[in-house]
């Protein structure tokens, strides 16, 4: 059992400084203790075909490579959990795509991991429900209908464009604008409040 007691009250920003100063145990603490659940959820979501422990180990190597080059890009103005969530999710997904050739399918047998995945998925469902509710109230109605057709009903862009008598390029512009409103209102504003 590793003892990480001395790190318990260190700030995330201080961690990055310590790690870059070659305190590799601080990185172990971040990956295997403080953000363990966040990383496990991201691993299971982004790369279900790769064992979670392998992914976290690969992430450790990725962050520590070339004298912490990757970690040095972290901007201390940003919340570390958001930075780590983005970096880990994209890294896991990329790793998973590279592993697909091996056709490995690793079922999740660990009950705690399954519970973690469920908890994260429920949270994701809440966020999606917020967005869906926002979608129902989206104005103007045309934007709402187009976004619903594309995102919810997964209709072909050409069909939707024909129905609304717009070009496909225009349809994408409308989708982009509507998506911006939704994300801004139901993802970013909620986060800022929290």
């Amino acid at each position, binding site marked *: 059992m590793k003892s990480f007691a001395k790190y318990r009250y260190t700030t995330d920003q201080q961690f990055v400084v310590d790690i870059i100063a070659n305190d590799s145990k601080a990185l172990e603490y971040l990956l295997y203790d403080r953000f363990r659940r966040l990383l496990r959820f991201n691993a299971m979501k982004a790369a279900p075909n790769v064992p979670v422990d392998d992914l976290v180990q690969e992430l450790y190597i990725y962050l520590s490579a070339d004298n912490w080059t990757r970690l040095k890009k972290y901007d201390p103005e940003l919340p570390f959990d958001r930075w780590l969530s983005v970096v880990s999710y994209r890294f896991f997904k990329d790793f998973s795509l590279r592993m697909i050739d091996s056709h490995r399918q690793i079922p999740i047998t660990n009950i705690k991991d399954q519970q973690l995945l469920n908890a*994260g998925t429920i949270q994701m469902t809440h966020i999606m429900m917020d967005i869906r509710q926002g979608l129902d109230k989206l104005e103007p109605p045309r934007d709402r209908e187009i976004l619903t057709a594309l995102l919810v009903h997964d209709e072909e862009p050409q069909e939707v464009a024909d129905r609304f008598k717009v070009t496909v390029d225009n349809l994408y512009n409308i989708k982009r604008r509507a998506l911006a409103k939704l994300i801004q209102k139901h993802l970013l504003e909620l986060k800022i409040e929290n």
Partner: protein
Amino acid sequence: MREAEQHISDELLARYLSGKATPEEESAVLDYLSENDERVEDLLAMSAAVEQFGKQEVEQKKHVRPLWPALSAAASVALLIGVGIAIWHNSGDSVSIDQAPAYATQDSIVETNMEDTL
């Protein structure tokens, strides 16, 4: 795949998720998201991970309180008890001197009573 997505760096996406992106950066992220619906789902998953497990981290921190407040409270109580004992001792000495005759009187009363009884 990874190379194709590099124009939206992890740092830019993290800034966007933190509400700290500039309007130009927001626009670039939205272009990137609207190109592919799977990216929106990925963004939701990244966000859900932070929302769900970030909160648990805060709650965990609330439950695991640092030791020093408990120690300082214990030290305060110990100090109060110490001061209380010192005051009690001091006040106890002065009372015994002042009340010495009263005890003597009481004893004599008791003795007198006993003699009466006999």
